[in-house]
């Protein structure tokens, strides 16, 4: 898509973004990230992938050979002996590890996907990934109903929520390590893809979105995860207008729900969004009778020009937030309907309202940047075709360059050729 950003008064300040991410790479993250300590692998992926999207990861001035080797070594250090990766080294008991305490030091499904992606972006060949153990562990992470969890208990119980985030990461791991191979790979049978697709189907809501569990509220992030599962499983419909998807019960309704997420921002005290990666932000109750609410869904008239900056919310009647530009736009891209979205106001929202002058993006206008929203803002601009950022893969969530590197790896080419 060609982006017309002529109306933007602020442009994408690429050098500032590069500096922001270099600081994340080379210096300690502020103490406030302690509440994300267990998700360090996620933060590591954001850092590596952002620098890749900004075409600076291969520059020795960004990452020397020695630093690259260190980064790769740190990720592999988090690899679990029995397959998968930890989210951080904080549960590793080192020499004291034994069968009795292994339950407190499990591999983690999202961390494993983030680790594999970061390794590929660092141009590692993934030869040191214990693929057989990883895929065997991944099978154990699936429940009989088809859903995936986060970690495994010693007695084989699958711990963590049942929501589609874990199913998405599981499908990402499967795609990276075994491509589209049918049947066993690396000596391990496939996961139950049909079971997972069934779970996703049951999470479609009455208004056209997709939720974490049947009957829960439709949510932009879960909708993205669900559609990504279907894309990884090659179960999305063609883009023929009006055609019903085999595994999406009503693609028109889902399209409508996704496009309805683009709403004007409201200047309002408080924060009621639920997208934050950190856990220490308190929400503030909104006053539904406040004057601000009257403008929440303004009806533009000839006297009221259409607003220029229009971002996305994640649920009906919620505030816009940087990250939902990614979750919603990428979902539309997978449905081959990105062209239906108003791209120019979407970019303007990010560039003029949530882009921060020190680089990165905040969650809402005027807020300081954090790694999560900075990555999602950057990924969204990449998806919308902004110049100066590498094209991005909608379900993988990293650059097409990175995907090409992964798919060109010798072991993977051979594996996929056999099937």
């Amino acid at each position, binding site marked *: 898509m060609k982006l017309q950003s002529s109306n933007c008064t602020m442009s994408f300040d690429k050098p500032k973004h590069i500096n922001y991410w270099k600081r994340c790479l080379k210096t300690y993250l502020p103490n406030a990230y302690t509440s994300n300590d267990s998700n360090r692998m996620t933060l590591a992926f954001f*850092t590596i992938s952002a620098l890749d999207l900004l075409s600076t990861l291969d520059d020795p001035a960004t990452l020397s050979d020695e630093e690259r080797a260190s980064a790769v070594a*740190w990720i592999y250090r988090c690899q679990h002996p029995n397959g998968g990766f930890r989210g951080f080294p904080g549960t590793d008991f080192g020499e004291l590890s034994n069968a009795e305490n292994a339950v*407190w030091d499990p591999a983690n499904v999202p961390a494993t996907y983030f680790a594999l992606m970061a390794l590929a972006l660092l141009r590692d060949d993934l030869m040191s990934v214990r693929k057989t153990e990883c895929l065997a562990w991944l099978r154990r992470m699936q429940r009989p109903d088809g859903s995936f969890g986060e970690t495994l208990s010693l007695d084989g119980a699958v*711990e963590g929520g049942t929501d589609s985030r874990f199913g998405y990461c599981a499908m990402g791991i499967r795609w990276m390590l075994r491509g589209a191979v049918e049947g066993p790979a690396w000596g391990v049978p496939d996961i139950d893809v049909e079971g997972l697709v069934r779970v996703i189907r049951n999470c479609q809501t*009455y208004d056209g979105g997709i939720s974490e569990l049947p009957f*829960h509220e439709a949510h932009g992030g879960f909708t993205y995860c669900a559609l990504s599962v279907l894309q990884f499983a090659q179960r999305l419909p063609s883009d023929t207008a009006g055609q019903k998807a085999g595994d999406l019960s009503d693609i028109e309704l889902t399209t409508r729900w996704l496009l309805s997420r683009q709403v004007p921002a409201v200047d309002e005290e408080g924060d009621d969004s639920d997208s934050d990666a950190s856990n220490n932000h308190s929400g503030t109750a*909104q006053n539904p009778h406040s004057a601000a609410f009257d403008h929440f869904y303004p009806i533009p008239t000839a006297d009221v020009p259409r607003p220029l900056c229009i971002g996305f919310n994640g649920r009906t009647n919620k505030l816009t937030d940087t990250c939902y530009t990614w979750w919603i736009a990428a979902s539309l891209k997978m449905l081959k309907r990105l062209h239906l979205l*108003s791209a120019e106001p979407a970019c303007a929202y990010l560039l003029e309202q949530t882009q921060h002058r020190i680089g990165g993006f905040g969650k809402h206008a005027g807020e300081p940047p954090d790694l999560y929203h900075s990555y999602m803002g950057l990924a969204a601009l990449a998806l919308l075709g902004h110049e100066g950022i590498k094209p991005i893969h909608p379900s993988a969530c990293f650059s097409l360059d990175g995907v090409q590197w992964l798919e060109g790896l010798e072991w993977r080419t051979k594996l996929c050729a056999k099937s």
Partner: protein
Amino acid sequence: MSYSASPLWADIVPLPQDDGPGQPLAAIAYSEKYSEAMSYLRAVMASNEMSERALDLTSDIIALNPAHYTVWLYRVRILLTLKKDLHAELSWMNPVALVHLKNYQIWHHRQTIINALNNPDGETDFISKMFAKDAKNYHVWSYRQWLVKRFSLWDAGELEFTEQMLKEDVRNNSAWNHRWYVVFGRGDEAFADPDIVMREVFFTQQSIRLAPQNPSPWNYLRALARRASGPAALPLSSLQPFANTFAPLSAPDAVKSTHALDLLAEIHSENEADKDKAYQALELLATRYDPIRANYWNYRRATLEGVKTV
């Protein structure tokens, strides 16, 4: 007092975090307090210690890093092993939940505890406290759904509860969603019950009158028309008079709701003789009332033309 200075912990050799020899990724400037607490946590986890002091240590860790994915599991194991009073656990948990509103591990933990207690008493009161802070908290609504199903609370005032929440904020989509769950979450039979469907239509239409541009009840109403069946069947076209009052196509200046226009476009597209009205509604949306979505409304127009030429 720090752990290393405490006589209670004198027998424990702390196990420091090992990030390896090189430069780690995503290194965080830990406080000394957190680093030390984590080192003691690893030490007691490594020896599977089930003790009061280990339980207190998990509280300290959770206060600083509630997303730690095994400290909660470890805490449960200690509680059950020491046969602790689980009501006391609830009392400990409540303020933690009220501080860490966005944390989801705590709700998983709460499910575990309430499930073990096998008694939901007091839970809806606590949920009300959470909603007073954030009436759209996703984790709390998810937890409430679990509670309703686990203890069969469908008819214990749940419908009235959604009504109260919507009275406070008719735009609370989480409350609308919960209402759908309470009414239709027990099985598809409700879709064929005329009394239930008509009650929902009435409630929804009353809500729309309060705020015609609120998308939540419109989505609910359209879903009713799509799903109602048998003796309760609700043809989309039956909603036309209602939609007309908010978007009279004969008086385009008086349009009060884009959602009414959208619904009228869909209703009129079902009938070849009314296609022009569908075009008009979509045109009003694209050029005047909802230009943010002009591409989408134009796509709907193109779809209509496609159907027309068949």
